[in-house]
């Protein structure tokens, strides 16, 4: 059981080819021309930056209105959570749950999950490797679904344009909400899952050396 890094080999994220760099260098993939690295460069720093940016945007995304409805009776602004409540009805509750899940629970869970993966990997934890890689894959798989609310608001606003009777306009919270989605997706992309396993691989090689000695 050894990793490519321990053997001095690099595997290409673009095409999967395993290759050996000139000693002391990080070269290019001879098959697809990708710049190769043993691990994604500055993975911790870049992922932290995206997670923190997402966490900051998460607050205005939930406090500011995402939709403003103007009728003859006046105008009313709704935040994401208010949108979930408005959608709740004997027939509409499954969709209300979808929005609650996609817009409020997934983004916050993604921020927390990435934070957890970063902290455990940086502390060199070698416990719970399998649950952690499963968590990473789940965050990767589910992340795009938080865009649902952006599309809901886009098409609601585009369609309900019946001035002076009634109109719906996108609110200032929408851009922050979209930013949370984009930043968390970029965070997942910049995190290198191999970092989860590095502590374990290191411990293994240590113990091997000890047993040989």
């Amino acid at each position, binding site marked *: 059981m050894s990793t490519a890094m321990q053997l001095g080999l690099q595997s290409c994220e673009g095409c999967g080819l395993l290759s050996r760099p000139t000693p002391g260098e990080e070269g290019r993939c001879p*098959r697809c021309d990708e710049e190769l690295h043993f691990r994604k460069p500055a993975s911790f720093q870049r992922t932290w930056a995206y997670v923190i940016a997402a966490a900051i945007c998460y607050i205005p995304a939930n406090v500011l209105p995402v939709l403003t409805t103007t009728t003859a009776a006046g105008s009313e602004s709704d935040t994401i959570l208010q949108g979930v409540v408005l959608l709740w009805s004997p027939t509409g509750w499954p969709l209300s749950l979808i929005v609650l899940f996609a817009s409020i629970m997934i983004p916050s869970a993604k921020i927390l999950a990435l934070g957890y993966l970063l902290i455990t990997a940086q502390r060199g934890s070698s416990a719970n490797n399998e649950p952690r890689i499963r968590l990473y894959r789940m965050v990767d798989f589910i992340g795009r679904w938080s865009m649902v*609310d952006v599309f809901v608001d886009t098409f609601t606003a585009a*369609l309900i*344009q019946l001035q002076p009777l009634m109109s719906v306009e996108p609110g200032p919270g*929408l851009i922050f909400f979209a930013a949370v989605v984009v930043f968390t997706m970029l965070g997942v992309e910049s995190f290198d899952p191999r970092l989860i396993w590095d502590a374990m691989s290191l411990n293994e090689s240590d113990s091997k050396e000890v047993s040989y000695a």
Partner: protein
Amino acid sequence: MDSQSYNQPVADGSLIACLHCDLVQRLPELEPGASARCPRCNKELWRRRADSLNRTLALTLGAVLLYIIANTVPMLGLTIVGRDASTTVIGGAMHLWDNEQKLVGVLVLFTAVIAPALEIGLMLLIVLGAMRARPPRWVGTLLRYHPTTRIWSMIEVMMVGVLVALVKIADYATVIPGMALFVLWVLVFVLAAMSANFDSRQVWDRVRWADEARRDEAYKLAEEMS
């Protein structure tokens, strides 16, 4: 940074490292339809597809057709006290742009229109290029960037969003589902089948290598100089 030299590939082509845990292992020969997983982290390393190029080409051509229809006919319409309104996918993004939400408008346009177009268009070029006896160098270049277009192509997410918007609007007005709505649902499944049938490893195994292309260029240049 441009001085980076090409790595030396490992002699045994079946040796790979898992991209999720870096474990070096030998990829077994697989029957079509069978898959191999990493013994340490359980990542699927390869699923071999039967008749991958032909099937992917058929699905991609279908996707091209559906995509064109979906973006030219109305997706949603409504009637309220004798007034009509309708919108297309692009219309939704344009409305955001016109209402001081330019960035969100660009994001919607990118994830619902541009990225899917790239996902389908690049796939078509890749498959056509890969059908040649020796897929040329540009097939590898496109193949390297194709996964990124898949990440940002979000038609299936948009369709759930549209469904929620439909229910919301139904409270105020009569909603008229447009032709594009049905076409887009079909497209969601065709796109899923398209990427499920594509086997990138089989293309990588045959594609012309980057270092080979550069060697030939240098050779040609030297010939011209002399």
